[in-house]
């Protein structure tokens, strides 16, 4: 899932300081599951904003809503009337949701209230870790299902570097060295041969370097 982290309240208050009526829009997808942008987070943030603005003597009206997904037209279009009734929308969906809103409803500015962090999953309740960098050319087949692009600070394909120590990464002692994990996994699978091959320079064209990426699924097109 896409994991996000709500922006600090101060920053949010500053970004909406000019408005008296806003919509606070969450998303029922990934950010609901990671507790940062679902209906509960919307309710909490709305009260925080109202309280802060009340203290400043500048009340604010907030319409709260959490569409099933902010990144699809059908769910946000249902809210069109409300969207057009406010001065701005504060979104605590991921960056995709914010942009879907801005493109679909260009007459209303949608401002981000959340920092989109990474693609990952909860390794324990309330704790998420990055797992995929979306490089566009998956290497998990030979790495024992563990990604060095997303999890190595140097994106090494022929790791580990000399900073791997006691299973930890030199960049952060609380982070596992992904190459130690890959080594251990392949050893347990009896596939250490995968690591004796010199892996050639990666073709990054499938990643973010070639500009915006697109996928067309002909059968689904109308």
């Amino acid at each position: 899932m896409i994991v996000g982290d709500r922006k600090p309240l101060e920053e949010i208050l500053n970004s909406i300081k000019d408005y008296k009526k806003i919509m606070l829009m969450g998303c029922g997808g990934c950010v609901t599951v990671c507790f940062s942008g679902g209906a509960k987070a919307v309710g909490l943030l709305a009260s925080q904003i109202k309280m802060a603005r009340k203290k400043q003597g500048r009340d604010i009206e907030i319409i709260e809503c959490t569409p099933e997904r902010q990144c699809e037209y059908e769910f946000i279009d249902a809210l069109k009337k409300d969207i057009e009734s406010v001065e701005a929308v504060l979104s605590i969906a991921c960056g995709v949701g914010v942009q879907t809103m801005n493109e679909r409803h260009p007459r209303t500015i949608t401002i981000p209230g959340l920092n989109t962090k990474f693609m990952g999953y909860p390794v324990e309740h309330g704790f998420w870790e990055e797992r995929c960098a979306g490089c566009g050319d998956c290497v998990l087949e030979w790495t024992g299902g563990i990604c060095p692009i997303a999890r190595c600070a140097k994106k090494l394909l022929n790791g580990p570097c000399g900073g791997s120590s006691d299973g930890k990464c030199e960049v952060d002692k609380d982070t596992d060295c992904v190459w130690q994990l890959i080594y251990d996994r392949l050893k347990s699978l009896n596939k250490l041969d995968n690591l004796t091959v010199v892996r050639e320079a990666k073709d990054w064209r499938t990643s973010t370097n070639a500009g915006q990426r697109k996928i067309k699924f002909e059968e689904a097109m109308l």
Partner: protein
Amino acid sequence: MKQRSRLEKVLSAGKFAVTAELGPPQNADPDVIKKKSQYCLGNVDGANITDNQTAIVRMSSIAAGAIAISCGLEPVVQMVCRDRNRIAMQSDILGAAALGVKNLLCLSGDHQKFGNHPQSNNVFDIDSVQLIAMVKKMRDEKQFLSGDPIKEHEPRLFIGAVENPFADPFEFRVIRLAKKIEAGADFIQTQCVFDVDKFARWMELVVKAGLHEKVYILAGLTPVRSERALKYMKAEVAGMSIPDELISRMEAAGDKEEKKEEGIKICLEMIEKVKNMEGVAGIHLMPIGWESITPVILERAGLLPRPEV
């Protein structure tokens, strides 16, 4: 190979090779390189010039290498993968060779977190193994990484790589060395050896795998002036193995001058030990911030004068 480097000639002649580190300054003063070059001139087979080590901005290793050449030294220019993509690296490889550089040491590079620009974006378009393969392809196949031909004047470089016998997973370190050799490394320089026993165990694995016959291995050695440096490395630098015994020796050594002398003695003992290990073809001295000690140590170790080749 034509235009062979002095380092390559020494190693291929079976002589015990000596290289020493020469760190470029954090400014644009060529005299710093000229001064440090004097410690190396006539004393080493290659002056190893670091590339923004520990991710701290310094004079370019290629520019510093060119200045060293003008002083009569033969540099081993380091190149890390942290700061440049494959286009810039190949361009710099051509430029370095054009300036007369004959040895290139290929590394991944310290993460920018440890330097003075932790906010920077790193590159790592290719990793150190891929860099080695790229330099070899340019030299031996006369092709750029893309496959485009280098029609003439391909860069003739003696290719170096590094390995850290003290990092984890220990067993994998030999496999990784083999990969670097397969990719094209001609010589290997190791991380600083303080834990001679662990280094010996690693060398045994290297010899058992027959890798010492495919590559020249230079043991990295760092003389220290106080126990402080050892304690710092033990606590802060990942992938270092520092025996407590060395720290105690330095602590027991009395005043500043006596500590310096103890540091030199420890280094000399290590040189003696690694010299007698099968598969060790030379040493690489890394007197961090203490370059003036290079000729002293080499003289006392009986490694001077350097052989004629």
